[in-house]
Each structure stands twice: as C-alpha cells, then as structure tokens.
C-alpha cells in the first residue's frame, strides 16, 4: 500500500519525545517543511517536491537574559491558522513562536518557575492551533495557555489559562467545524490518560472530561467529533468527544505509543510506537449507528528504531513521514 521513498537527512538525530515530527505543506511554493527536536535544538528541513532541493535550518531554545542551564525542548509543531502559519516551540523555559520558515521569532512566553521543587521540572508540551486565531499550549502543571494570534505581526497575547487537568499535558488537537453548537474544537490529553474536550471562544468552555486509567495518553487527535487517543499501553481508543462514549478499542502496539496522526479528508490514521512499528488504519463514520469504525490497512517496520514521530504529509494521507530516536533521517513513505 505504501512504499518507502528516499529519506531526508537531518543535522542531528531525533530525541525520544512524544509527537516528535512537525510537517507543513506549502503548496504555492511546492515544498514541505519538516521539524524534528534534538535536545535543545529544532532541526528544520524544507524539501522541494521535485526532490532536488533541501534547505536546513536549526533553531535553538532560548531563554533571554537568563544565562543558566540549557533548556531542553519538549516539542515543536506547526500551527496552521487561516491567516498565517507559525512554528511553535515549547521547552523547559517557555514557549517560542516563529514564522513558519523559522526565520524570525515573533513571540516569547516565559514559564513561571514553580514554587515547590517537584520531581519534574516545569515545561510546556502539547501544541495546537484552534479555530481562527488561537494557539493553545499545555504546561506540565496541567494548565493550558490560550494565545490570541493576530493575522500578522507579533502582537500575540495570552488570552486565557484554562484548567481541566491535574497532570502534565502530553498532547492537544483540534478540528474546526464551523459555528455548530456543542461541537468540540479542542481535545487535550495528560499523563494520567485523561482527556478534556473544549469549545473555543472568547472563553473556552469544558464540554466533557473523559477519565483515564493512570496510563499516559501520549498522543491525541480529533476527527469528525471523535477523539482518537494513543496510550502508553499501546492501545488506541476512539471516543465520541462530546459524550465520552467509547466506540472502539484497539490493542495496536506492544509498547508505548509515541505519535498519532489523522489525514482529515480520507480518515486515514497513523500510529507509531516504541515497538518500531508504524501502522496505518482507516477511520470511517458508519451512517446507521453514527459512530466511528476503525479498520487496519498497513504496517511498516523501522528496524531497531523506537519511533517518536509519525505524520501524514498531506490531508489525504497520500504520503507520511517518520522520525525515530537516535535516527538522523526523516523516513518517507508514499502510496504505491
């Protein structure tokens, strides 16, 4: 179903972090941008569609005016808003936002240092663009920061801090469904496996809370009102976001899931785990039962590699890319 293409070499190997691959498809310029985090650096590479040009860039985590320890980056992700695309980088020190080519930093938000010295340092993790103009970022305390992003310029402001989680945020995902009432705009996941479902707006409101089973939900996606969640047990669960009804449960992987992605137009789902496997599934809405179904399509094994990022390169799922711990390349697959 898919065949392996020529890999893209990156300057450093990818670190073992959840959802460690960012992809942005820029059709007008016929290129795709990829990002992979290595410790305190984001490796960016822009690949032209004809396979002839690759340009690399590295972004360092920054902590202005604070010359202390290196700050490890937890995640880097592209946020595609209707008016602009931004690259958001979250670290132990704070949140940086760049123009999507990584050329200019347009915003920096420092995280507060915690009062209590817990076993986990403070960090930000979990990034999602939401609706017209929001970018949401999760924090290790469980809080979610909501940033208001103007259509251009650097006048980005922290609009809200929403509390719904008590444990560290792991991942967030959104889906924009127009102005329908009671349709979920954002789902957030935490280290206890809990999911929160939100409606965006001037004030974000909590639509539902789906409890976990003390196992991290490391990756979550939203598709047609379904929260697709991947867990440390290797399971994938499909929940109807607003009601919390469990529609399907898959014993998908033998180890911790690190990354999920959905191709919205086709309903293809990608799951990748520490067991070295990437699996492709098909989500479909059953018209009779109005519930989502899942079927398995394809497996790819990346030998001896614990995969940390897997994403489709386009909304149909025609191609996808994969990163692995200690791997200095982005592996690509296209439908054959």
């Amino acid at each position: 179903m898919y065949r392996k293409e020529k890999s893209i070499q990156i300057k450093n190997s990818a670190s073992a972090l959840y959802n460690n691959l960012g992809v942005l498809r820029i059709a007008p310029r016929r290129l795709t941008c990829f990002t992979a985090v290595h410790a305190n650096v984001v490796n960016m590479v822009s690949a032209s569609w004809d396979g002839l040009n690759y340009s690399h860039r590295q972004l360092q985590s920054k902590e202005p005016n604070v010359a202390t320890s290196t700050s490890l980056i937890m995640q880097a992700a592209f946020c595609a808003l209707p008016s602009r695309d931004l690259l958001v980088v979250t670290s132990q020190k704070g949140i940086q936002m760049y123009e999507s080519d990584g050329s200019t930093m347009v915003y920096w938000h420092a995280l507060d240092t915690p009062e209590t010295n817990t076993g986990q340092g403070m960090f930000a993790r979990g990034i999602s663009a939401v609706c017209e103009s929001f970018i949401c970022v999760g924090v290790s305390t469980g809080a979610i920061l909501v940033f208001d992003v103007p259509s251009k310029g650097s006048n980005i402001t922290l609009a809200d801090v929403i509390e719904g989680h008590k444990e560290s945020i792991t991942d967030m995902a959104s889906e924009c469904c127009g102005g329908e009432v009671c349709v979920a705009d954002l789902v957030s996941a935490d280290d206890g496996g809990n999911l929160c479902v939100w409606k965006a707006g001037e004030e974000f409101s909590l639509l539902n809370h789906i409890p976990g089973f003390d196992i991290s939900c490391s990756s979550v996606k939203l598709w047609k009102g379904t929260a697709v969640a991947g867990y440390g047990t290797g399971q994938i669960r499909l929940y109807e976001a607003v009601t919390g009804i469990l529609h399907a449960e898959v014993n998908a992987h033998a180890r911790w899931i690190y990354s999920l992605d959905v191709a919205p137009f086709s309903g293809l789902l990608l799951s990748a785990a520490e067991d070295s496997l990437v699996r492709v599934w098909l989500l479909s809405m059953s018209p009779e039962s109005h519930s989502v179904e899942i079927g398995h399509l394809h497996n790819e094994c990346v030998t001896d590699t614990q995969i940390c990022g897997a994403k489709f390169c386009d909304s149909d799922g025609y191609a996808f890319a994969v990163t692995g711990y200690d791997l200095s390349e982005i592996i690509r697959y296209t439908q054959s």
Partner: protein
Amino acid sequence: MSLRTLPLVFINLGGEMLYILDQRLQALNTSEDNSEKVMTDIVGAMFSKDFMDELLKPQQLYSHRTLKTVLTRLAHTSIMRLSQASMDKLYELMVMAFKYQVFLCPRPKDLLLVTYNHIDTIREFVQHTPVVVNQVDETHRKVIEVYSSLPEGEFQLLRQTLLIFLQDLHVRVSLFLKNKVQNPNGRFALLSSGPVPPGIDVPGLIRMFDRKGREVRRGEFPTGGSYTSPIREGCFELHGDRVIRLGMNIYSRNHPEETYISKPPSVKQKDDAPNLLAKEELNLLARLMGSMKAEDMAETETGFRINLFMTDGEEGGTGTSGGAEQSSFEVINIQAIQDEQAATQLARIAGQFTEGDKLPESLSTNKGADLLALMDDL
C-alpha cells in the same frame, strides 16, 4: 524534564563500573584482599549517606563530563589507580551498557528493576562487610521510598531524559556484538517478538462498542510480529526476583577479552554542554565531591596501578583505520593532566566542607573560573 535522574544514573553506571572492575581484577589475578578492598571502598563511597542524599535532591542531569569526573573520583576512593585511557574506555563501556538497559527497558518503571538488579549484585560484592551492606540497604530503601510512588508517565519522562543524555552514542561493544544485541552499526536490536510487558495486551485485537458500551464486534489485524502474553512482573521490594535480566552482571569471569570496544565510523558528536552550564555543574561537582568520603589520595598505603584494558594499543576486531579514525566519540574534553589537577583542586574544596554543614550556594566567580579553566580543553 525529569529532576530525578541522578540517583538512578549513578547506581546503574556505578554498578556497571563495578561489574567491569570486578571482572578485570579477577582476570588480572589480583589478590583476593586487594580485590575485595577495592570493591568495598568504592561501594562504601558510592552508597555513603551524604553522597546519596546529594544525589536524591531533585536536580537536572548534567553532562558526561561531570559524571565521568565523579565516577573517576569514586573509583579512586579505593587503593586502585586507573590510567586515564582505562577510565575513558571504562566510561564508554559503562555508558553503552546503561544505554542498552534504558533503551530496551520493557516499561518505563522497569528502570527501577534494572537499578535493583545492580543493587542486588553490588550487595553480593560487599557481602563480607556488614557496614557497607547496611549502607547499600539504606540506599535501596530510600530509592524505593522516592520512586515507588511515581506514576508511569513520570517514569517515561525520566527515561526520555536519560535517552537524550545517551543520544548518539554508538560505541560497539564486542560482548554485545557477539550476543547479537547490538548491530555492527552500533545500534541495539529491537525484536518484534517475545512477551509483551506486564500490563500490556498482545497486539492484534480490534473491539467495537455500541452507544451503551456493549461490544458489538471484534476483529483481528496482522501485527507483523509474534508477540506472546506477558510473563510475571518483577519484585520492586528490597529483595525478590526481578524477573527482567537487564542490569544483571553480563561480564563473565571466564572471558575477559570480551569487553573491548570499538568506535563506529564517522559518528558526528555534538559538543557537550556549553560553558554557560559550567557554573551550575561545578556547584554540583563540588557538592558531590564534598559529600564523598574523601580518602587521602596523596598518601595511600600501597595503591596499585591498573590498566584495565590491556589492548590499549590494539583495539580489537573491526575498524583499525589508524590515523584516519578521529576520536569521534568525545565523552569529555579533559586532558589527562588537567583531570588530575581538577580532581585535586576539587578534593581540596571537598576537604573544606565539614559533614552536614550547608555547602556554599555557589563558588565565588574567581574560583569557579579557575575550575572551569582546569576542566576546559585548552
């Protein structure tokens, strides 16, 4: 990232160090007395209350440079003296063994079982010295107390922190190559077969539910692997069957030649932490050295020198490309002479700290700069 890595790092790396030292001491026909004294002295220093208390404070993981300096000092609390070259190779071996254990750990919290495997064997090494056995037990209890209640998500963060620390190290270890746990390119083998970890279901099943929660359909999918049910979970108490074998002593006393290492071709090594980090690292170093039982290095009775890896010149099997092969694996940028100076300097500072007193928050800038200069590659 996790602030609880240091105790596990030291116990596991220290444990590997002791395994290798033990094997080499036997292989070199060292006297029973000397061997036992070496092991007991090092274990005594490593598991001393002060040292462990320092490690157990929540703090971040620093660079290989710091760890190697402290581990060298630990090794030198015994009457044994290691050559710089030996220490370098020893460190590479220790780190690769630890990387193998962290990488292949079935579940993040099994890192504790790996740690307990090390502690169990260390206890055997010093079993004839009850005082030190007590220290080991005390430390073990403290570790159980601190780590047992950590949720799995935090363990995974701890593991991810360790994996970043161990990233890009692909030194080939002949014992691993021989056992096929490591490939010729330096990467560890990951099998898609065997038992799944406890708590995980064997992959392959899809279940669908109706709106009332009743299962309406189930199906199977091809997993591309051959997984089996989990075996029992290991014991997380002070004593017990750990079940997993990672962290056990793999160095057979009968085949000492199996511990040689070779560097992989053209591995680009990122330079270690920038100088900005140095001040905090030096603070940590000072605290750790200060809390170590400082044997008087200068006038030990009959310290004996040991060259652990006799094959210093001939590095074994693969890749003897001589001059062309750069030291592509830069664990630490300290020259031999400066290392001794640094250790002595730090030992002097260590001597200034009386037990139990609060250590000065930071060294004065001047002293910090001196130490920094000593530790830097010129």
